[in-house]
């Protein structure tokens, strides 16, 4: 039984890619734990097929979780941690797209779209069918 468990452990450690994070990360406060959970869900595992580092057991994901853990313990802010990762892996590593000239369309689209939608309703419904309201 012990041999089996040992073999199981080794094989699991070698093969696991789609399972849970291994060691729990002890924090000094509830707030930091929450920060860790949220951050690891926002950081992409760049070697996986669209997973975050919280839910992946790929070696890089484990290393990045470790790094995020240490940075939180070193009292770095969320923004600093994200900047650090983006500097090395590019914007790709964050699931939230940045707000810059390239992503302007992406972020502003919902507002523009809402105005456009209201305009279309006005133009094709209201104006067409209720001339008295023009």
């Amino acid at each position, binding site marked *: 039984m012990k041999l089996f468990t040992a073999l199981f452990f080794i094989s699991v450690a070698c*093969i696991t890619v789609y399972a849970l*994070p291994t060691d729990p990360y002890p924090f000094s406060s509830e707030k930091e734990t929450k920060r860790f959970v949220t951050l690891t869900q926002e950081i992409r595992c760049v070697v996986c*097929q*669209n997973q975050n580092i919280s839910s992946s057991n790929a070696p890089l994901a484990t290393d990045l979780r470790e790094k995020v853990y240490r940075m939180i313990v070193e009292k770095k802010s969320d923004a600093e941690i994200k900047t650090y990762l983006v500097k090395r892996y590019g914007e790709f590593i964050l699931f*939230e797209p940045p707000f810059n000239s390239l992503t302007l369309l992406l972020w502003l689209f*919902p507002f523009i779209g809402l105005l456009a*939608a209201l305009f279309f309703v006005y133009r094709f419904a209201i104006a067409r069918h*209720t001339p008295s309201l023009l």
Partner: protein
Amino acid sequence: MTIALIGNMALIIALCFALAQSIFPLWGHFRHNVYLLAFARPSAFGQCFFILVAYFFLTLAFATNDFSIAYVAANSHSSLPLMYKLTAVWGAHEGSILLWIVILNAWTIGFSFYKKDPALLPLVIAILGIISLCFLCFLLLTSNPFLTTLTPQSGQDLNPLLQDPGFVIHPPFLYTGYVGFSVAFAITQAALLRGVLDHAWAELTRRFALAAWCFLTLGITLGSWWAYRVLGWGGFWFWDPVENASLLPWLSGIALIHVLVLVEKRGMATGWASLLAIITFALSLLGTFLVRSGVLISAHTFANDPARGVFLLLLLALVSTAALIIYLLRLPQFLSSPRLPFSWRSRELALWLNSALLSLAMTTILLGTLYPLLLDALHLGTISVGAPYFNKVMLPLTLVLMVFMGLGALSTWTTATHTPPLWPVLIKKALISLLSATACLWGSTGQLAIIPLLALSLSFWVILSAATAWRSQPGMTLAHTGFALLVIGLMLSSTLNEEREVRVKPGDATQVGPYQFIFLDTQQANGTNYHGIRANFAVNKQQRHITILSPEKRIYTVRDMVMTKVAIHPSIFRDLYLALGEPLDAQYWSVRIYYKPFVRFIWGGGLLMMIGGIVALRPRKENRKLA
């Protein structure tokens, strides 16, 4: 060997029937030749028969472990349980395209029993035949499931993530939904070709679109529930590109169904309705392209192959361009229809707004999903657009939509004979919603955060306003209530949930929420194609024993993949969710324990929406028809 031969032959004969089904009725329509038109139904039956033969033989190949067929070898194994052998047919790309075609034929046959509009029937079947023809060509040219391997292997087993009951039901229902929108599309195209878009067209399209939407709702709900069960960390929606691809026709379908009501009741918005019918099916095709071409990074994608991607893109481009050209040619006819006045506080305006908002939601998700792809294609960089973006953007949209959902349910048609005063009812319901939401939130969390408060009160608002229409439109009441329940489930499960990740050894107790989890022991747990370890936990609430939960850790031998099998104790008001992590030294295991209140409301809401849709399919009572 023979199975492959029969399969290929069946596919080729089906292709011939599809050709007949597409060409002759269309030819007959333009030449006004009744005999050519009559080819439609028989060809459809012929094609369906031979496609079923092909599907049957592929299933047979799986059931009999015929590993000379490459597809079977890649997705099955002799030790795979029979249930999964039979369903592994749709476990990868080639087989799932065959399933697509089977379902398309099933819808075609289903439609052909509709005797109500004989003039429309052959055209619709012809258009469905064209779609089937395209997919059959795709299958035979790039994705043939009957290709043989020279060296029969013992099989690479089905992906362990797929070996779950969720896999047995989710894809068929999802595909039935996707493919079902092709019928609404075909009916609309046929009507456009004939130049007649009347009440009969609207009712027919609405029924089929609604039926397809019900299946799609069920498919998505099942997919979400399945992900929750299988993936191991309690998530049920990830804004993954493939998931978004299924949400797009779903949203467009809702818009379509609502706008068709406008056409049916008042003869307005014919142009918009037909455009939506085209868009909805085009989104289904786009989804098929995105999932199978390899352009998106997703855990759900099938095999990547640029050749397949090119074919699907061409298919999408040709079908949508042709459809839109026909639409644009016929458009002047709709715009010249008589003006039909409506008032500001009418249901007409509410339905218009609803479709606009839903289209906005759909376009937003589409843009978000395609954005990284588009930037990359233009060599402008690599970014990710994931859950944080979609959650941020969809939340305000959903809240605005819910305001109008309620207003729409309370409003009446402009031509209605009896128009009750709107403002008293509105204010009363709004106040009740707000107060009950405040009470609920205060009672359960002790704090009033603005977003949960808004979401909860708007959900109650939607339910209360939909309840007024219970007698006249029970389907709408159920569907709207279902949506409200979905939002309640989403909001409450995210604000009230608790999770803990702990290292425990047998005997340790952990408190999560009001429950206590005591690690009892571990034991071996082996199946036909895996071996693993099961850990037993006793769950108590205030000294009262609730249940035993047994999460497992399995190694599937053939593919050498480790899978974590989650243990869930479901209940209407809360789920208890246990996932086994890694074995640590000296009997310790890492475990994740989740207390998730109201998470079942999410899928319950989805199911209720589907039931509402089914109820709305009933034939309308004649005396409820308005001018």
